[in-house]
């Protein structure tokens, strides 16, 4: 978490090797990410990005099936294992009724579930999501967050998200990384609250973190 422009997306894009690090090195299982081939990394880390997909006529099923590309042969033929993994991903995200639709017909909330299903089909230990609820209303936001929470519990995957939903993150996240202009604070939501870390998140004039309510409140002048 962090304010706009602090570098959340940059951090996630760097972690997933979509862009080169500005400085420093990243290790996955003690292995330098620069030394891991794109092919090998694609079996360890999958992505859900905020940017709109280019317009095309892909069906939901085809879109999810693209998640199997790291495993398919040169002509991209789906094996029985691939088909099984895709079916599991569809089941886990509860989008069975959508699979024959074109993806442009979906609502933002449905599309987000489909993109998560695609990442699940990629069968990686780690899923990185950049602001998965950016375009969603409160109900859809809650649905996505509870889906992610459920996935962490049932699949034992590491799910890293960037989000502006501070209040939800405090309730649901196992661990929070706070990006502030000067430092980086990490810990469980509880620990961060105890150390008053959330006070550093936004300028103090307008919002304030209320410990008893466990959320940010607007300061009324």
């Amino acid at each position, binding site marked *: 978490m962090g304010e706009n422009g602090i570098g959340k997306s940059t951090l996630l*894009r760097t972690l*997933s*090797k*979509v862009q080169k690090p500005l400085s420093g090195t990243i290790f996955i299982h003690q292995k330098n990410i620069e030394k891991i*081939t*794109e*092919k*090998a*990394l*694609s*079996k360890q*880390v*999958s*992505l859900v*990005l905020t*940017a709109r*997909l*280019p*317009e*095309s*006529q*892909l069906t939901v099923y*085809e*879109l999810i099936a*693209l*998640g199997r*590309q*790291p495993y*398919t042969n*040169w*002509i*991209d033929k789906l094996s029985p294992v691939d088909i099984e993994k895709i079916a599991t991903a569809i089941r886990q995200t509860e989008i069975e009724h959508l699979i024959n639709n074109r993806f442009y017909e979906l609502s933002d909330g449905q599309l987000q579930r489909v993109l998560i299903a695609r990442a699940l089909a*990629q069968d990686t230990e780690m899923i990185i999501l950049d602001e998965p609820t950016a375009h969603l209303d409160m109900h859809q936001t809650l649905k996505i967050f509870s889906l992610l929470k459920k996935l962490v519990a049932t699949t034992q995957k590491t799910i890293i998200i960037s989000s502006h939903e501070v209040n939800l993150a405090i309730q649901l996240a196992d661990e929070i990384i706070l990006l502030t202009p000067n430092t980086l604070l990490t810990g469980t939501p509880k620990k961060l609250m105890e150390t008053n870390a959330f006070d550093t998140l936004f300028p103090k004039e307008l919002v304030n973190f209320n410990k008893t309510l466990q959320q940010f409140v607007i300061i009324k002048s």
Partner: protein
Amino acid sequence: MEKTKYTKQFLILSVLLIILFFLNISFGSVSIPFKAIFNSIFGGNITKESWETIVIHFRVPKAIIAVLVGSGLSICGLLMQTLFKNPLAGPFVLGISSGASLGVALLILGSSLFGGFFLTNTVSNWSLPMAASFGAILVLSAVITAANKVRNTMSILIIGLMFGSLTAAVISVLTYFSEATQIQQYLFWSFGSLGNLSWSEITVFAIIYSIGLIGTLFVIKPLNSFLLGEDYAKSLGINVKRSRHIILLITSILTGVITAFSGPIAFIGLAVPHIARMLFSSSNHKILLPAVAIIGALVLLICDSIAQLPTSEFTLPINAITSLFGAPIVIWLLVRKKKIFV
């Protein structure tokens, strides 16, 4: 699931292709009965020897070229549209056509300027394709060198267009200093032509075409991943930079050889991918690639048959026909469907 869904369309298109191939052969300034055409191809008895010569040495080569050029340009169009995520992209956006035009312009128009540099003023069968290929490779390597310095695919598109303008300007200057007969000769090349190719030229054409076609099979997977954008493609383990280079290379080989032998044929490469997407309502390249190839061949065979104007002595320039009949069809399709896709 996906195979059975599209079998019907593919079957109909293939049958249409075969019918049109033979229909195309039966059209021409000399009217030849269909039976004689069939016999001359499959080695039966022919009443007139001249018929056999016309069919074997003129009409069949032309129909084959139409199939190769139509499918080749359409495949290039599809590759470019997916790579650039731009429905307006076509095989010629990279400056390939302008490069080829520059080569031909230098050969035909430049001969008066540079005098002795070119040995003769007469343009032989092989010098045109050579000049066109040379020009295409020259401009294309300039574009690719520039493209290597930019990361953004959209910039490559614009760089290609800029090189196109540059070469067009050079050609204008050349034209200004040229004589009427040479300008006319250049103009005729730019009309495009499917005919007048010998069997040996067709063999060369077909070999290079096949190399390009085999190459496209290997980029189906990256192409499909590009449908999600380059970031996703990368996260799916696709080597984006290498795939982009292979796609550019295939397009230049195919477009280069096509332009070299038949001139810059407009419209097909841009429009056929759209027609294919509408007929198949799919963006999956495993379906689109064969669809685009068949439809491209079909469209050019139809255009060439129209250009022949059955039983007339005249042959209209193929470039005019492709645009004249094709553009309204695409406009109509788009207005009806309202939504276009990459």
